[in-house]
């Protein structure tokens, strides 16, 4: 166990965590200490935006864990993210209490509106944070466990798995759009007031959420690092590279896959839970298959098979999205589409892979060129 923890805190991990918390600390200080209007003051929307990026990064990390290290391409990870978000949303809805438009102390506004006479059974317990917190991890984890249990045991692999994960999130989207599911139908859950007693509109709460997101991302990073560098992680990577061979060596491939898939879903759930209070709404459009595919491109851009690559990819692509949808909305889909094509054709191992050649083994194209060039120089020198 101690070995596991130590392995997580290697040099790369320390650098990553150092940069992450350093930047977050600077941002927090400039938001809270600098007066409004000062050139060094960070506006609150920026704090929330960075917080949102960090939850996306955690989601990307969870996808990278299964795709980059285990070769499972899930096109439905948005579903786990959204489920975690809904669990948090339900807690936040219950916290509103009688401050809603209809002033009903028990029922959220949309239920009053839809003529519910009492709280549906699955809403009970969400008035307690500890219960919601367990559900945030438990519900996505359970879904992933059941789904993975069936899928991996019957050896559904590759694109088939991708397609049925996509069908899963699509089915959930249709389900959550229904009004009588009791999750607010197409409007989702919104108008949140406070979290654990802190006002969500308050700058301090925002910074707190930013820290929580950074903590979650850091913790997720360390867990992924520990998992992938353990003996268990080596088996996972072996499954990615040669599934049948690993099975023939006597490893229970389906159990390894199931464990890593469930872990990844739990991480996605936590990411979703932190995302919701920062953007202030959760609705069924989070389940759309397109969202889940977009997560995959974040990982692909950053470089799958490298944990910090996924984080970098998520932040870069989302920054570009924020910028382009604001400045040139027509261009965004062209850019995103082009990114998909460009990355798969020219940067199969992402930015990180192109730069330093680490990642899923083998040197990067750039490093290969450099080595060839050195070799050629050496030959010239000898002759």
């Amino acid at each position, binding site marked *: 166990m101690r070995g596991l923890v130590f392995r997580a805190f290697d040099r790369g991990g320390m650098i990553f965590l150092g940069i992450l918390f350093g930047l977050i600390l600077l941002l927090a200080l400039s938001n809270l200490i600098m007066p409004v209007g000062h050139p060094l003051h960070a506006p609150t929307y920026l704090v929330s935006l960075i917080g949102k990026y960090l939850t996306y990064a955690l989601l990307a990390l969870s996808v990278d864990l299964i795709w980059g290290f285990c070769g499972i391409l899930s096109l439905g990870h948005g579903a786990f993210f959204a489920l975690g978000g809904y669990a948090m949303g339900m807690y936040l809805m219950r916290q509103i209490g009688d401050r809603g438009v209809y002033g009903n102390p028990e029922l959220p506004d949309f239920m009053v509106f839809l003529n519910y006479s009492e709280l549906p059974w699955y809403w009970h317990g969400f008035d307690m944070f500890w219960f919601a917190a367990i559900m945030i991890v438990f519900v996505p984890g359970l879904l992933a466990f059941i789904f993975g249990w069936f899928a991996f045991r019957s050896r*559904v692999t*590759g*694109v088939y798995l991708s*397609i049925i994960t996509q069908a*899963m999130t699509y*089915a959930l989207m249709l389900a959550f759009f229904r009004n009588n599911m009791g999750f607010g139908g197409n409007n989702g859950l919104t108008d949140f007031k406070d979290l654990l007693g802190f006002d969500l509109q308050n700058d301090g709460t925002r910074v707190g959420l930013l820290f929580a997101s950074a903590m979650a991302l850091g913790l997720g990073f360390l867990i992924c690092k520990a998992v992938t560098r353990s003996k268990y992680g080596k088996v996972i990577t072996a499954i990615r590279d040669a599934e049948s061979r690993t099975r023939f060596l006597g490893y229970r491939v389906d159990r390894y896959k199931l464990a890593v898939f469930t872990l990844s879903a739990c991480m996605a759930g936590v990411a979703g839970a932190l995302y919701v209070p920062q953007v202030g709404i959760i609705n069924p459009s989070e389940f759309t298959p397109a969202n889940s*595919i977009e997560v995959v491109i974040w990982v692909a851009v950053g470089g799958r098979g490298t944990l910090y690559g996924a984080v970098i990819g998520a932040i870069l692509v989302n920054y570009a999205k924020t910028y382009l949808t604001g400045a040139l909305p027509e261009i965004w889909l*062209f850019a995103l*589409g082009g990114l*998909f094509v460009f990355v798969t054709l020219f940067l199969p191992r992402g930015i990180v892979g192109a730069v330093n050649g680490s990642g899923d083994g083998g040197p990067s194209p750039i490093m290969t060129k450099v080595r060839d060039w050195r070799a050629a120089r050496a030959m010239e020198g000898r002759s």
Partner: protein
Amino acid sequence: MIARLLALMITLCCGLPALAADPDDLPGLIEQLHTRDYAAMEQTVNTIAATGDPRAVAVLQALSDGDLYYRKSDDKVFIARKADSGNDLLDPLTGAFVENVGRRDARKIGINNSMRRALRGALGSLTLLSPDPKVRATAAQSLFKSPDPGAVEALGLAIAAEKDEAIRTAMEEAQAASVLLSDSDDATKITAIQSLADRGGRDALSLLKGIPDTATGPVKAAAAEGVESIEAALALWSTAQNIYYGISLGSVLLMAAIGLAITFGVMGVINMAHGEMVMLGAYTTYVVQEIIRNNAPGMFEFSLAIAVPLAFLVSGSVGVLIERTVIRYLYGRALETLLATWGVSLIIQQLVRSIFGPTNKEVGNPDFMSGAVQLGEMTMTYNRLWIIVFALVVLAMLMLVLKRTPLGLQMRAVTQNRRMAGAMGIRTDRVDALTFGLGSGIAGMAGVALSQIDNVSPNLGQSYIIDSFMVVVFGGVGNLWGTLVGALSLGIANKFLEPYAGAVLAKILVLVAIILFIQKRPRGLFALKGRAVES
């Protein structure tokens, strides 16, 4: 009592043509309608009805509607029509305009309730005996919809005189319906119930259900039996209707999935841009129709016939372009292909959105696509019928291409063993491009069909992509029969679940069922066997 008397009178008048007034007397008879003596008026109405003169219908109708007036100056009778000032008086027989009079110069001929009943019977017998078969058929149908005990005898006479088989049946049914409401004896009523039960349909059902509780035992029993048999027949029809809806939905799924069965099934390329090929086909239809509307409106009926090959070419060439520029570098890397084609789909979507705008485009139905045909209790719209036919034709043609042409032979050869095919002199990269083009082109043709039933917008393709993949995966990759069976069974399953679960839940259930099914048979219903599976 009065009704019975009336019926008797109608019978007398109709049944004894010898007594019937001479049609030439009609103008005189009409003048006699201007009276305060309702008994006399009834007599006159019946005499008029007995003439069987079609011109009398308008007069009696006007009387019943309160549009029959008399002119104060000379007491002549006219049909009145409200005008801007006062009333227009029309000749009762010809309907020709006579003059416009002030509101006080002509007065309405008043009638009472018993007159109204008499008029209804008279009008019924007039129309039932009309020389125009269409009028007779309509009269019988309207009597069936709103049965009138007073019309039983009139119907009996009309049935005796009727020569047209279909109209006679309709009249008999109307008579049966009327008998149920009359106070005839039980035996007659039971016969009527049986004839209604034989007719079937929702109207007959509601008639039988409407039999009052005062009915005697045998009548009640017969009615219950009739209700049961009609309900059984209706249940059968509704099953048939569900199957038809299912086949219709299945044919839409089939259309959307056939192209994918080629690109994904035969080539193994996960083409996420497939939906956009469908969308391009739909937009081609839109452009063709716009050009026709602006230049040659008379050609509109042929717009779809023009659009089908054009859509094939447009989507097909876009497909070839995608294959040559993106996909060919990614063979053997299925997951990367998936991502790259998803990117391509986003680009095409945005391109179409930039050119045509984000809103739905209006694509018209040519005449042969609109309207519906009624088969028993089932309604089948022509556009759905044509799409079923079109989907089957496209599937058949595709099978012919794959099995009977040199290109098809080469495609299958390359699919089964690329290197060997290359060694035999097949230009494998060219075959790849053409195969992808073929699959995309078929998607484009599907777009033409879908433009007839769905909104043409940049998001059109998105809504079909998951369904298409489900069909292909469910049916079994690399097998066109599997695609056909998969599409139809998914369509039918969906439509049978809908009445119990609602449309959205039915769709969710089908998706969950497919997800579970894939666990059981990861390669679909009709799995390929042998080495090809291993890759």
